[in-house]
């Protein structure tokens, strides 16, 4: 029995197909225009920082327990939502100059530096490729937000839907 | 190899089940014959485990703990001896 025969709640993550069905993943043309947020939260957890922090007023939260929904026409890709989500379930995606970019929250060691080489991991923890750190945004240590919000670049733009974690390798 | 239920008094699951089979089938008598829940931790680690075993064995639901009495945490005897009382 492969992992895909399990339900997300048994497996511990959503498959690409399941996310697509719920309209969680942004269409390619939007990603080519600008960076957009992707909220991979489909449970009714009482939580509202994403809706609260969104400056462009694009994340809509019907109530405390309903997940946030992004309007990709208005999202400015500021990544504030990536930094506040307590479940670390929000990411940003973009296709720029034919290359893919994914922004992930990061709270591990080693610290990411601009230009660092990283291993790219998908939702199941499988290494799907290698990338480079293009924008490591530092938050204060021990603050409410994840310590880093890291944007990595990958040669294959089709991988942006898959990459959800990084392993920093250094120079 | 042993499955320990009460770590303070080294009471295993087999011990508890044997005691229940021998007729000590309620928590008050069970704890007196086996020593379970009467050690230093006063049942913090083993009370619900023991009641679960009892409930499963007798096909009953869990109703109540044993009678809880002070002290619920270890206290040196010397601390209970007073020579002076200061009242505020």
């Amino acid at each position, binding site marked *: 029995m492969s992992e895909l025969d399990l339900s997300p709640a048994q497996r511990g993550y959503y498959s690409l197909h399941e996310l697509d069905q719920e309209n969680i993943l942004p269409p390619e043309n939007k990603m080519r225009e600008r960076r957009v947020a992707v909220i991979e939260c489909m*449970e009714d957890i*009482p939580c509202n920082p994403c809706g609260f922090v969104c400056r462009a007023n694009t994340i809509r939260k019907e109530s*405390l327990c309903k997940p946030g929904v992004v309007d990709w026409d208005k999202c400015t890709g500021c990544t504030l939502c990536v930094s506040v989500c307590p479940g670390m379930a929000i990411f940003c995606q973009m296709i720029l100059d034919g290359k893919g970019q994914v922004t992930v929250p990061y709270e591990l060691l080693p610290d990411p530096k601009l230009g660092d080489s990283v291993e790219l991991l998908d939702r199941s923890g499988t290494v799907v490729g290698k990338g480079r750190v293009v924008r490591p945004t530092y938050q204060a240590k021990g603050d409410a937000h994840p310590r880093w919000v890291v944007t990595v670049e990958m040669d294959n733009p089709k991988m942006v839907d898959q990459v959800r974690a990084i392993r920093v390798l250094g120079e | 190899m042993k499955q320990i239920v009460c770590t303070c008094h*080294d009471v295993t699951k087999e011990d508890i089940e044997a005691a229940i089979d021998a007729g000590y089938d309620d928590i008050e008598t069970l704890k007196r014959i086996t020593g379970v829940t009467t050690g230093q931790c006063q049942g913090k*680690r083993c009370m619900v485990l023991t009641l679960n075993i009892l409930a499963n064995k007798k096909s009953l639901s869990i109703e109540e703990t044993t009678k*809880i009495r*002070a002290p619920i945490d270890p206290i040196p005897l010397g601390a209970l001896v007073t020579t002076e009382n200061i*009242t505020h």
Partner: protein
Amino acid sequence: MEDWRIYEHPILEFDRGNEVTIYLDGKPMKAYSNETVAAALYANGVRVFSKSIKYHRPRGFFCGIGRCSACMMEVDGVPNVKTCVARVRDGMHVKMQKTFADRLTPFLNMMNLSPMVYIKMFTKPGFLYEPAMKIMRQFTGKGSFPKDSTGYNSEARAKTQEEISTELLIVGAGPAGLSAAIEAGQLSKDVVIVDDKDRFGGQLIKQTHMFFSDVKYAAGKRGYKLANELVKKLSGMKTVRAFTNTTAVGYYPSENIMLLLRPDNTTLRIRAKKYIVSTGAYEKTLVFENNDLPGVYGAGGVQTLLNVYGIKPGKMGLMIGTGNVSLIVAYHLLQAGIDVKAIVAPSFRRVRGYLVHAAKVRRHGIPIITRHTIVKALGNEKVNGAVITKLDDGYRPIPETERVIDCDFICIGVGLNPAYDLIQLFNPKMVFVPQLGGFVPVRDKQFRITENAYVAGDCSGIEEATTAVLEGRLSGLHAALSLGYGDDSVLQKIDEYEWALKEDRNSSFSTAIRTALEAIPVENIEEVIMNNVRTGS
């Protein structure tokens, strides 16, 4: 020389204090002044702290917060000290409480010293009983009195017993207790709050993950930051007296006295008009072969070692349980650079915690193995592996499906039991409610369990830190109202917090809790207590 301390962490900076030296059975060990004895010994690679009373099985660090008594050692001549609570001191002498019978451990473990058998041994003929007992006592190894009195502080011999009166006594300074003290302290003139640990905050102090809930309350905050905020707010309040290192040992309703133990082995007796019990919970554990081996820890114990003392519990861990605590602690281990082999749980319908927590660990490569449970811990003096087995639809082990997982510690995260013991001394009506974690008191809408006592937080039902804060605030306000303080603005606050609690419990994760909480509260707590007294339950 082994050093298991963490020197680089992505979130925390550990304030260990100054370097000091302590001695274990004469051997010097590096320690730091803010560490407890158990933490310092653990950091030096010590895993066996004591031997058990009957079979002399090795025991070690388990709960880490003074609840299980597995870590008791002789400290500076005083026997049976809870080393996970006692702080180190430069030059301290720690000894393992040994007895000659420890050498018989392998032999003893083969025997089955059933209490059913030996409790009747030597009772006939009667004259054998006394000498037999004297010999048996040599076997126990549970500490001995010092040969001379240098171990004791002779000044402390002139023991004093302090007695305090107050309007409101709050036992337990976790999120619920602290919030209650803050609310009640703003209204009433005299509040006392106590906690058995040397710092306030309860379990918050070791929680480094961000909380959910509403931004108005705690969303996005890390637990330990919330603890700092609450403590800071409290320390500015002149109406609140705070006692750390003070353990509530008993409550006597007929005299209305709470008896507490202080660290210098003196007692404190407090008489209050009203009490709030917010003592939290005890970790559940599992029964399987060798479940008492050093290396088998509660998830909370691992969190304490990791996040409070900055010490690695091991190199490769196995996590049992898929609730939020297990998933979060697995993530904490990742952050500390420790390998987690797998997360194992019998459930097959779903991972019990939030999927976002599960996703966090899955994307870093930690597998989740459902439909399995642990049957054995492997190792002699400490864990070096675990045996797991697959379960069928009836949760029974399927034969021939056992396999060994290589690991050097096993973390058991299978839930919490509300702390029922101090509560029961007030003689409320207790009920067993599995959805709330275990035994909880029946209470009314004002959180009262008896005429003079209230409950808040996990000890009233296992939930979250955010609900504990709200329940604490509510019980603090109700207690202050019952003492004659407060006005309409208090009633407004009560409405606001009750609404927030309702919102927080609106999700499917809280369905079971909501159902249970709808069934328990009663209209008239006095009537319930009268019936309790009448039926003698």
